[in-house]
């Protein structure tokens, strides 16, 4: 007990890492819809306007309400993250804030534009002419892309730092703005994540209407709301496989220790096998798992003679630990597996769509499609785990270690904060799900009874039905 207490008071590193991982993993859930849902809503909005389709307009307007609700949650979880940089990693920001902050400063601008234009889009449905409303809405996708670029620019700096001049004592003397923003890994990190966001958002939205198909709803509303996001997401899956492959191969040069962890390679060698599953131990042996001889080397350079970097090429204290390497490897395998499953689903969909000129009608297709949403979120989480766990023990790759950046606050403080955050985040999740389910139930009810009401009436944010003079709330139009 005594030892436990001493441990609690002494070390803030473990709880800080858990807290950062937890809050980031949670925030990442908000990101795909934040980045890509506006595009899908605008696509539907465009169909509605240019084909004069009231059903498409109704779908777009409902999606815009979901946009606003999830923006609010994302704004809160994002604000928490920005404070955690100070509460948990003050020394990181003290040393590299001027470089890391460049991307975040641009993100601040993007965040601002998103906040305002989501508001304008939500209010504009009844208060602007349809085309003006649509054109103003078109500023949302670029704002989402700008936000993605800026956050990924900051993350890429942590992976492959560049554009900085350091003094002999490691002080940051100068920053070259473009050099810091466009580091080596930005090219693949940015495209890989942007495509992932569009795939995940498309599949998760479509999966809701796949479920509604399974429950027997087969009208134009269901078909349209399923087909538009599903088609876009499916089209992007093979592209993602290519970008993902390029990313992995770039790591051989950019972050060899991370690549070694992803492939659980112990010693640098040619004819390196590819392990599917499997765990490496402290002696460098791989247990379980299926080994495909020389396949890793072939993936690296299309040649079994290609040399794959091993974990031992880096000093023991400068590479991921055994546990971290195994997490990185399994997360990587999971991501690749789910990505490949997405491609299979894409082929299935297009074979039916192009071969029979109609949407699939097999229950098994819609069962699979209804899992694609969750599957792509799991893929994003595991891809993110691959990137971040594989970067250990560095917070800024090869320049600053995580344990040199952590707060000097007592461990007990960070543990307590973590416990409170777990509770509070559970509450947020409950509210988020309650609000969304409430909206969905109400919309379904209205469709069945053919009621026409403003879709945002059940959301806690956005335009309100006007207050009557007696303080009662007038029923919405």
């Amino acid at each position, binding site marked *: 007990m005594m030892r436990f207490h001493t441990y609690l008071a002494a070390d803030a590193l473990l709880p800080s890492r858990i807290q950062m991982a937890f809050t980031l993993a949670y925030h990442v859930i908000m990101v795909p819809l934040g980045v890509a849902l506006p595009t899908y809503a605008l696509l539907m909005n465009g169909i509605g306007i240019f084909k004069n389709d009231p059903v498409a307009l109704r779908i777009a307007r409902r999606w815009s309400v979901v946009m606003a609700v999830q923006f609010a949650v994302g704004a809160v979880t994002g*604000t928490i993250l920005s404070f955690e940089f100070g509460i948990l990693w003050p020394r990181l920001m*003290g040393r590299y804030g*001027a470089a890391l902050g460049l991307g975040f400063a641009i993100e601040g601008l993007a965040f601002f534009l998103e906040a305002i234009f989501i508001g304008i889009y939500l209010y504009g449905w009844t208060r602007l002419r349809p085309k003006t409303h649509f054109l103003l809405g078109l500023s949302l996708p670029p704002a989402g892309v700008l936000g993605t670029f800026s956050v990924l620019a900051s993350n890429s700096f942590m992976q492959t730092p560049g554009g900085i001049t350091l003094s002999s004592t490691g002080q940051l003397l100068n920053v070259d703005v473009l050099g810091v923003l466009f580091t080596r890994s930005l090219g693949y990190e940015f495209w890989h994540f942007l495509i992932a966001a569009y795939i995940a958002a498309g599949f998760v939205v479509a999966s809701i209407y796949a479920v509604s198909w399974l429950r027997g709803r087969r009208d134009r509303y269901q078909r349209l709301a399923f087909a538009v996001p599903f088609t876009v997401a499916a089209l992007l899956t093979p592209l993602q496989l290519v970008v993902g492959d390029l990313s992995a191969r770039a790591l051989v040069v950019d972050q060899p220790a991370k690549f070694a962890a992803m492939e659980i390679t112990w010693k640098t060698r040619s004819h390196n096998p590819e392990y599917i599953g499997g765990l490496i131990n402290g002696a460098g042996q791989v247990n379980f798992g299926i080994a495909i001889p020389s396949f890793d080397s072939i993936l690296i350079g299309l040649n079994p003679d290609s040399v794959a970097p091993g974990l031992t090429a880096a000093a023991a204290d400068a590479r991921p630990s055994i546990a971290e390497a195994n997490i990185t490897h399994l997360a990587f395998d999971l991501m690749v597996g789910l990505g490949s499953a997405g491609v299979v689903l894409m082929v299935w969909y297009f074979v039916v769509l192009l071969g029979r000129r109609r949407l699939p009608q097999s229950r098994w297709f819609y069962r699979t499609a209804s899992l694609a949403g969750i599957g792509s979120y799991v893929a994003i989480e595991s891809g993110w785990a691959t990137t971040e766990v594989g970067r250990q023990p560095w917070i800024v790759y090869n320049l600053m270690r995580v344990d040199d950046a952590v707060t000097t606050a007592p461990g007990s403080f960070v543990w307590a904060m973590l416990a409170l955050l777990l509770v509070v985040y559970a509450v947020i999740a409950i509210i988020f799900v309650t609000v969304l389910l409430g909206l969905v139930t109400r919309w379904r009810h209205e469709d069945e009874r053919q009621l026409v009401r403003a879709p945002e009436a059940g959301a806690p944010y956005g335009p309100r039905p006007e207050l009557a003079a007696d303080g009662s709330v007038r029923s919405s139009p």
Partner: protein
Amino acid sequence: MTAVLASSTAFVLLLTITAYSVAGGVDYGAGIWDLLAGRGARADRARALIEQAMAPVWEANNVWLVLAIVVCWTGFPLLFQSVFASLYPLFAFALLALILRGAFFAFRHVWTGPSGRRRTGVVFGISSVLAPFFFAAALGAIASGRVAVNGPNTPVWQACFNPTSIAFGLVSLAATAFIGASFLVGDARRFGMPDMTDYFRLRAVIATAVLIITGTIALAALGLENSRLLSAMLIGLGTPFAVAAVIATPVVGVLLWRGIFHWYRVLSVVVVGSLVFAWGFGQSPYLLPGQLTIAQSAAPPGAQVLLSIVTLLVVVLVLPSLGLLVYLDQRGALESQEG
């Protein structure tokens, strides 16, 4: 050139803190009055008005907070490290209050039963009190001189909780209630609720008195702890803003007391803005009084240039679109009044 850039970044930082104090203050203030409304038909009407007035905001005020954080760590990394290494408890508490507040505002809206609504409303109200208190206490802790480079020069808990930080927290509560009531008067008038206009008029006048009292106490606390800063606020760059706050506060009280509905909202913005400016300019050229100047903690020029560009873009892109959003919000209200 570098010095000019760093000073302009410091000014941008002060502006974002001010914007958050004003926009967040209106919002938190509504939460405080929600908490204090009590029970009964009148309280229900007050809460309906508050909910109506706050609905368009949906956490967008956090943008100012995030901008302030980002400008701080990009423009003044050493300041950021020092402040957080010293005052992390205050920020953790403020953060928890901020999350609970947003969550329970939404929760109350979707909750159907009256007792559940009341309980969720209490959490919303209490967190509306705690968040501005802790944020302002952090500014007070900096003003007290206890935040030194790389960490506090006293134990962390003393750096966080001392006469100046607590006094700053109390002033912020009074100022928040003050600006919140003032804007709710405007909302009640806009929605045509004369009884609520009087209800919040009275509360704005009370908040004016409380603000004057807590402000005086805060000045006394600051005088005891950091007389250099106090004199810089009274005789120095902070002076015009201190004077503006001292004059504008009672003017708002008198205007609302006498039911003169002109300028009261602008003047309450002036009050809150002047209070923040009096602190900021009073401290200059120090970011941490007596410890760290703007020049000493300024990031390399590249970072300052990028921040200037982003600031310019915020002014060019964000302000007009914010104007459009406000216009749309108001226009809807006008339409329904005609109809």
